[in-house]
């Protein structure tokens, strides 16, 4: 096992990785930008290195600065968290070249899944159903003909995209060429490539995802599913495990798990990953993309399995086989229900960012409540970074109990000093489709209009 792990991230996830390291007797080493000198993730680590200015390009995603810090601090492994460098194949390779273990998948798998169009083709060849769409990236001269084949309404998506950027919905053929131009220019600006592909737009789909693990030795495990259909700006706000979607039947679940398990084993995938799918109203499920890292919403899976996924990541990176990990079971032990809400520093009406300082951040102290926070009372929420302040996760014996506890948790939380989205989360909690456990990705559209 590793002696000292550098955590190449900030905020709640860096603090969370530190906690597991401490429990396992591993020293954690933080990195920080000027803006984060006094941040919680630095206070929670055993050591820390300043790596640059506040903008992420000058600090957290500066490969050389992060790796120099790891070498100078004598770290033998790097945990990338999520976002930032976590899906950057060059970074994983650079770690390898400097004799430091990258805690994550092989660079080749990160690159394969990073190209969304290639990922689709790969998963289709491995037996997963994919959303009908263009076979490859589209060129300007035959794009309209391909669009006719795919059928309207459709989505234009960036090959190297994510987070809803470079994505355009096209309802009618006469909107296509203008949307294509706009999608290409925003993709080029955000991802450095204007490659796009087309996908049929599913009507009111549910976002369902599977937590997977592979050990690079041919073993694969599926640690259950999550539903993440509560989104704003194509980003998740509330996630739960197991997925409550009523048309995700036991039979469909079993078929999906088998397909994903054999695909992950077929890739000889190593470490944690998430296979994201869309489930349409007719009960058909399609592969959407694979995230080659730990997911923001991994705590709901931890709550229903009792596992520590960061511990699994560390042990697999250290060469331990999947079947010998603590808590491993086939099928994995899943009981109860967990729901996570993301607490963002943003206006609860407009959902626009609201950076500032936190005078008070308090949540009820309950055994069924988990708070993964990146900030505490007295801290600053900087405009340089994502508005995620904390994740509040509740556990219940079943979904109704989890819902009731979530209401108690949100009603009893106090955040003062800046605007936050708890009032918005409470509106979601009051929405009938959410209470019924039958809501799709359009749920928040209705809540914002009203």
């Amino acid at each position, binding site marked *: 096992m590793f002696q000292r792990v550098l955590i190449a991230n900030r905020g709640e996830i860096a603090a969370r990785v530190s906690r597991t390291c401490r429990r396992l007797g591993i020293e954690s080493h933080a990195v920080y930008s000027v803006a984060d000198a006094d941040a919680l993730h630095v206070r929670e680590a055993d050591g820390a290195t300043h790596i640059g200015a506040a*903008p992420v390009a000058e600090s957290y995603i500066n490969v050389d600065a992060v790796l120099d810090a790891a070498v100078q601090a004598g770290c033998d492994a790097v945990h990338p968290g999520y976002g930032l460098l976590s899906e950057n194949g060059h970074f994983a390779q650079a770690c390898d070249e400097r004799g430091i273990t990258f805690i994550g998948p092989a660079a080749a798998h990160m690159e394969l899944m990073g190209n969304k169009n290639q990922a689709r083709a790969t998963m289709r060849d491995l037996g997963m159903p994919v959303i009908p769409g263009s076979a490859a990236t589209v060129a300007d001269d035959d794009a309209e003909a391909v669009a006719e084949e795919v059928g309207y309404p459709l989505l234009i998506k960036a090959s190297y995209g994510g987070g809803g950027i470079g994505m355009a919905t096209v309802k009618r053929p006469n909107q296509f060429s203008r949307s294509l131009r706009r999608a290409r220019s925003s993709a080029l600006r955000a991802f450095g490539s204007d490659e796009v592909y087309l996908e049929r737009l599913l009507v009111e789909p549910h976002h369902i995802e599977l937590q997977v693990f592979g050990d690079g030795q041919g073993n694969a495990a599926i640690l259950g599913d999550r539903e993440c259909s509560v989104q704003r700006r194509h980003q998740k706000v509330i996630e739960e495990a197991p997925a409550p979607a009523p048309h995700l039947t036991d039979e469909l679940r079993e078929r999906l798990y088998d397909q994903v398990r054999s695909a992950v084993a077929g890739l000889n995938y190593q470490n944690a990953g998430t296979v994201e799918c869309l489930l349409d109203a007719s009960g058909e499920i399609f592969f959407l993309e694979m995230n080659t890292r730990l997911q923001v919403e991994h705590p709901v899976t931890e709550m229903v399995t009792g596992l520590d996924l960061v511990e699994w990541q560390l042990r697999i990176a250290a060469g331990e086989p999947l079947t010998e990990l603590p808590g491993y079971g086939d099928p994995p032990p899943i009981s109860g229900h967990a729901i996570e809400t993301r607490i963002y*520093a*943003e206006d609860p009406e407009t959902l*626009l*960012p*609201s*950076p*500032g300082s936190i005078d008070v951040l308090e949540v009820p102290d309950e055994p069924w409540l988990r708070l993964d926070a990146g900030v505490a009372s007295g801290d600053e929420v900087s*405009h*340089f*970074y*994502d*508005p995620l302040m904390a994740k509040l996760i509740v556990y219940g014996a079943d979904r109704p109990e989890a819902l009731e506890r979530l209401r108690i948790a949100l009603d009893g939380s106090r955040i003062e000093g800046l605007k936050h989205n708890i009032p918005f989360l409470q509106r979601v909690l009051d929405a009938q489709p959410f209470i019924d456990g039958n809501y799709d990705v359009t749920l928040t559209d209705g809540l914002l209009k009203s």
Partner: protein
Amino acid sequence: MADVKSPMAGTIFELIAAVGDAVEEGDELVILESMKMEIPVEAPSDGTVAEIHIAQGDQVQEGDVLVTLSE
């Protein structure tokens, strides 16, 4: 004269307006980047861009004057 202020702390991502431009209510003057989001700052009324107080890459605080419009 009307001052167009920054709605929140952030970085000036893109300056769209130039001094002398005639703008209509709702036209985008500046794109502000805050918390990984691009937020357009729009003209609150019709007018002409009289003064620009910021440059691309500048850090601004909530309430800082970005652009001044004349009637």
